[in-house]
Each structure stands twice: as structure tokens, then as C-alpha cells.
């Protein structure tokens, strides 16, 4: 597919915007800015955050795990009343455990079954665990918000792990603990007729109990017994989420910084998205070093070296020489970084040719109040960003 994407299009016509990328690149901030722009343009927008920095969370009115969207007073994000009529901004912080509890309650066959699971220690560990569960629940929350209506634009921040997009391939992999074969065998020996395995299985349980304690093993056994029958409901729901993610109104925004490690993660995500015949709609590169002029680093460094060799008999001349050489070395170093950053970014751009691209420069301050969010919003949406054209400077 080679349609032309623009950031404006994501905000005007997208129903869902999934922000992916590694940790520490400004994903949550970018997600908030996209949602704010949606609200400014008259849409009912919500941003789902995962683990926002405290100050940003405060700005968005999130004093803890809210797990439900809360409307933000327009006075805060639109003090001049510039927004298009009808525009509304909400925010929430994902509570993985509550979301999981909600699913259990929904799919349990009885109140009693639900309570047994919710009280189980092993369940509490899974639902509180970070890897896999959080990614799954982020998508589950997306599903809820999408189906329950009330929002024109749902912007989803994702957990900073490579598993964030596992949903596209194999949602069940995220909850692999629930599908664990050996324990399914343990739990229903009668039904599967694996009586022969009975003795070996009992020996296994005894050995493991000796190592971690019997109480722990009892919890595991009790959990799988209670969870019996619920997998189907989870599976159906997961399939629905995958459908939603593959719809044309779902847009993918890849957020990165020009650092080598963040770029590697961005390439990984771009490939995963491409594997599913989906495309990255926008690539946002945060904290880009400026480039000062066109001179290449190698030439500038040579200049600095030559200067240092200059004979400077007087002290005044020596100081002038040292200053000038230092200036050249400094310019060389920054242009070197800028060159390398752009080369790094290109390795992602080759995989996201149809995406709108925006570079956001290093700012003098962190972005965690509405004023700063508006400032970056201006950079991203000020001109009309079209595919291949780069805002913020090449």
C-alpha cells in the first residue's frame, strides 16, 4: 500500500492511534499531544496512558491508576477557547490488575467462580505481573473504549516493551500462563484420560512443592481448576481486538529518538507492523540535535587540528587560537552527532516510506504541562505534515 499519510489525517480521520516505540522516547507525551489536537479539532478524544511521569500525570489530572477516562477541564488545555465546538479531552492511566479483574468477572460462569479466582494468590501474581499482562490489558482497555462508544479518537500509549504489538500475532502468547499445557494436564487428569501420567505428575508436584513450598503449588492448582472454561471467552474477545487493530481507521504512530538503541526498537516495530500488511502512518523523532550549517564533521575537525598547529607567539594569539580551535571542534562534534542521527533515522524511514515524518528538537525544558504540550503540538501540527516532508527541519 502506498497511500500518502499525514499527521493531520491521523487526527482528523483516525478512530484509534496506537503509539509504539521503546521506553524513554516521549511516547506518552506524544500520545497526549495527538489527543489534545484531536480535541482542538472538535473530536471527543481520550488518551490511555500506561506509566506517565509524575508531572505529566498531574497535568492530565491523573493522580493515580484511574482505569476510567476522566474529562479534563477545557480551561486547562484550551484557555483561549480556540477549539472547534464539541471538542473534548479525556485521559486515563491503565490499571492492569483492575482491567484483568473486570475480564474475570465478565467471563466467570458464576459470582462464586469469579471470587475464587480474584482471591487466588497465583492469579494476583499474574494480574500484577508486568510482562505480557500489561500489554494484553492495554489492548483490552482499547477494546472497551472502542465498543462502549463515546469517543471519536482513542490514542493509546503502549508499554515500552517489544511485546506491545504481540496482539497482532498471537494474543494468547501474552497470556501464555493461562494456556500452559503441563498444568492443564495436571488439573484434569480424569477428563483427558491421562491416568498413566498420574504417578509421574504427582511426583513432579511433590518435587516442586519441596522447592517452593506446598502452599504455592496449591494456589497454582486451585487457580487452574477455577479458571476452567473461561479461556474461550478470553479468546473470542482477543480475536475481536485483533480485528479492530487491523481496521483502516486504526493508525500507527511510531515514536522514537535518534539514539541507536531507540532506533533499533523502532525498526523492530516498523517490521512487525509491516508483517501484517499494515503501515506506519507517522514517525515522530524526538530530541533531535540541531545541525549547524552544511559543513561536514570530518572537514571541521581537520580545520580544528590545523588551527592547533598554528604558531601563536603571544599570549593573546594563543588564547585566540585555542578559542577558535575549540569552536571548530565543537561545531564538528555537533554536526557529527547530527549526521549520525539522521543516518540512524534513515534506517527506520526506509521501512516507513509512506509515513508522515516529524522531527522534534531538543527543548530547553521537559514537556509536562499544557503550555509545553502546546509548544510541541505547534511543531507537529503547525505546518501541514505530509508523507516524506519533514517538519522541524531536516
Amino acid at each position, binding site marked *: 500500500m502506498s497511500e500518502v499519510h499525514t499527521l493531520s489525517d491521523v487526527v482528523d480521520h483516525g478512530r484509534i492511534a496506537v503509539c509504539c516505540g521503546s521506553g524513554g522516547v516521549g511516547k506518552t507525551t506524544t500520545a497526549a499531544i495527538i489527543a489534545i489536537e484531536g480535541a482542538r479539532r472538535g473530536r471527543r478524544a481520550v488518551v490511555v496512558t500506561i506509566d506517565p511521569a*509524575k508531572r505529566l500525570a498531574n497535568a492530565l489530572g491523573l493522580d493515580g491508576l484511574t482505569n476510567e477516562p476522566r474529562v479534563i477541564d477545557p480551561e486547562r488545555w484550551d484557555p483561549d477557547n480556540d477549539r472547534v465546538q464539541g471538542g473534548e479531552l479525556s485521559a486515563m492511566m491503565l490499571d492492569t490488575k483492575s482491567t484483568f479483574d473486570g475480564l474475570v468477572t465478565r467471563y466467570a460462569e458464576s459470582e462464586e467462580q469469579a471470587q475464587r479466582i480474584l482471591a487466588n494468590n497465583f492469579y494476583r501474581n499474574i494480574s500484577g505481573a508486568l510482562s505480557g499482562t500489561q500489554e494484553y490489558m492495554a489492548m483490552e482497555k482499547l477494546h472497551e473504549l472502542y465498543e462502549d462508544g463515546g469517543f471519536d479518537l482513542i490514542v493509546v500509549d503502549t508499554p515500552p516493551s517489544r511485546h506491545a504489538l504481540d496482539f497482532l500475532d498471537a494474543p494468547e502468547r501474552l497470556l501464555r500462563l493461562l494456556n500452559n499445557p503441563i498444568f492443564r494436564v495436571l488439573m484434569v487428569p480424569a477428563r483427558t484420560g491421562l491416568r498413566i501420567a498420574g504417578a509421574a505428575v504427582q511426583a513432579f508436584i511433590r518435587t516442586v512443592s519441596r522447592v*517452593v513450598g506446598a502452599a*504455592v503449588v496449591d494456589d497454582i492448582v486451585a487457580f487452574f481448576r477455577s479458571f476452567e472454561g473461561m479461556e474461550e471467552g478470553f479468546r473470542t474477545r482477543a480475536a475481536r481486538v485483533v480485528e479492530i487493530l487491523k481496521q483502516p481507521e486504526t493508525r500507527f504512530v511510531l515514536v522514537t529518538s535518534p539514539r541507536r538503541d531507540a532506533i533499533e526498537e523502532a525498526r523492530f516495530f516498523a517490521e512487525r507492523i509491516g508483517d501484517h500488511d499494515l503501515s506506519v502512518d507517522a514517525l515522530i523523532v524526538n530530541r533531535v540535535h540541531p545541525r549547524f550549517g552544511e559543513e561536514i564533521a570530518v572537514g571541521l575537525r581537520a580545520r580544528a587540528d590545523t588551527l592547533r598547529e598554528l604558531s601563536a607567539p603571544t599570549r593573546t594569539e594563543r588564547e585566540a587560537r585555542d578559542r577558535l580551535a575549540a569552536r571548530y571542534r565543537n561545531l564538528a562534534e555537533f554536526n557529527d552527532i547530527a549526521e549520525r542521527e539522521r543516518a540512524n533515522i534513515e534506517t527506520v524511514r526506509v521501512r516507513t516510506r509512506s509515513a508522515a515524518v516529524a522531527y522534534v528538537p531538543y527543548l530547553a525544558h521537559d514537556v509536562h504541562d499544557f503550555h509545553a504540550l502546546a509548544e510541541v503540538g505547534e511543531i507537529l501540527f503547525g505546518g501541514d505534515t505530509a508523507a516524506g516532508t519533514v517538519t522541524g527541519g531536516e
Partner: protein
Amino acid sequence: MELAHFCSTSRVVIVAGKGGVGKTTVTATLATAAARAGMSVLIVEVEGKSGLPTAFGRPALGYEEQELAPKIRGRTLTPDAALRDWLEHNGLKRISKRLVQTGALDVIATAVPGMKDILVLGKVKSLEQERSADLIVVDAPAAGHAITFLTSAHGLLDAVTVGPVRKQAKDVVELLSDPERCQVLLVTLPEETPVNEVIDTAFTIEDRVGVKLGPVVVNGCYDDLPLDAAAATAAAAKADAALLDVFVSDREAADLAAAAAFRAERAAIQRAQADRLAERLPLPQIRLPFVFGAELGVPEIGTLADAFTTGIELL
């Protein structure tokens, strides 16, 4: 303080900090500085892949120790490998392969939160007791996880009341609580959010882990150019050039000035943040310079080791 003295304060140094602040760099730097002071060093990498071997010009690390540089060895010690290792030593060798294949290992590790971390730290404790090196430097998992990594022992003592896992947990608590055996070096960047996070992390660790906190390492600090405000202008650049009878075009003078101004501005922001950190967190600081260069390799780590040594001597 003398470098040799600092390095022999604790036999195990755990380097911790959020992703992207340069933990791996600091690990390599500390190891290099210690080796120069005559100590034998073992670096333990807890996360599978990292830039550590590259910093020493080597391909990759494995579960077996490898030499990275004279007096410096390195190895990985991932939670999965530690768990498998430990199960084999506790009579589950015969079925440990099946445990891995069927995913039962995952189930057990989830059922006992912190278990994998305990086993990594337990193995570090064994290495420390065997005196496998004068100094063991542990490149800890990234941030939020670093706290659970360090608090895992306490949590586990509540959850598991008997057995070999509990014994491991107790041994780990002993290691962490003894400043002669262990200290934690927190790493941060001189920027607002990382500073806030390292302050939180430090106080949380102090409340919940009881491990000694060493100096905070602030990475990536721009040092100042020999230019004051007046000298950072295009006109000043041209004036210096004229004095030396060297030609600098207007365009180039403007670029030189803009780059100098950018650096000065960033350096000032960084200083303000590092000072704010010093106010809010009563721990000594070691500021390491920003190293311009493609990949951090042996020469860059050498420069940082010099700066680190100077920093320690100033404490």
C-alpha cells in the same frame, strides 16, 4: 578518596538506573578504573543483550566467564539461566528440561514473584563468597525493575515460608544489608525527568531495601568551552580569526557561534539539574563528561575511567 579505597569498600557494586541513562557505560567505566587500580574485576550482565561487550571491543558475552580486558572478565547471568542453574542444583535436573519446554518454569516463576531475581542475586552472592574477583560489578536491570529486583528478597520471605528458595532469599538480604559486601551506584542524566526518577528510586531503595547507596553518577555532562558569553558570538569568532590571519566566512562564523551557544545553553541546563539533584538527594555525585563519538569503545571508556577516577578523588 583514593580510587583503590573506593573500589575495595564493597565487594559487590550494583549499577542501577533507568533505561537510556548509561548504566552499561558506567559499568564498563567502573570496571576499567578498578582494573587500573590493580583489582581483578568480574562484570555480571543481568539482561541478555547489552552494549557492554562492544565497549570492550568484544563480540558477545555468555554464561561462562570471558576475558574482556586485562584483569576484567565478564559473563551474563539472566534470570532464566539462573533459575535453570539453581533447579539443577536442587535435585530437579532430570525434569528441568521438561520444565522449560512445557513452560512450567514460567508458571513457577510467576507463582513466586521475585524468584528469578532472588536467584540472580543468590548466584552473585555465591560468586562474592567464592571471591571470584576483587570486585564484582552487576549491571542491574533497568529502573522500575531495579527496585523490584532489590526488594524481591523481602517480598519473597513473606510469600515463601519454607525450603531452599527461602534460604536463598535470606542469604540475599544478608548480602544487600552489609555495606562491606554490597553497595548500589545509581546512574542518571542531568535532565529533569531522570533526576526526578533517580531521587524517587533512591528514597524507595532506602526505605525498602536497606542497601548502602554509593555516589550518584551523572552521565553525559557537557563540559564548558573556553568561551564566555561575549566570545560565543559570530563577531568574536571573526575577531579571533583576524588576529590569527586566518579566514572564516560570515556563514561559518554564524554556525560556529550557534553551535557554541547551543552547547553553553545545554551545559547550563545540565548544571542546574545536577545542582537540583545535589540539593534533593544527600549523596555525593560523580559527573562524567559527554563523550562525542559513534559507539562507545575502548578509547572512550578510557577517557571516562579517567574522569571517574578524578571524581572519586574529589569526594
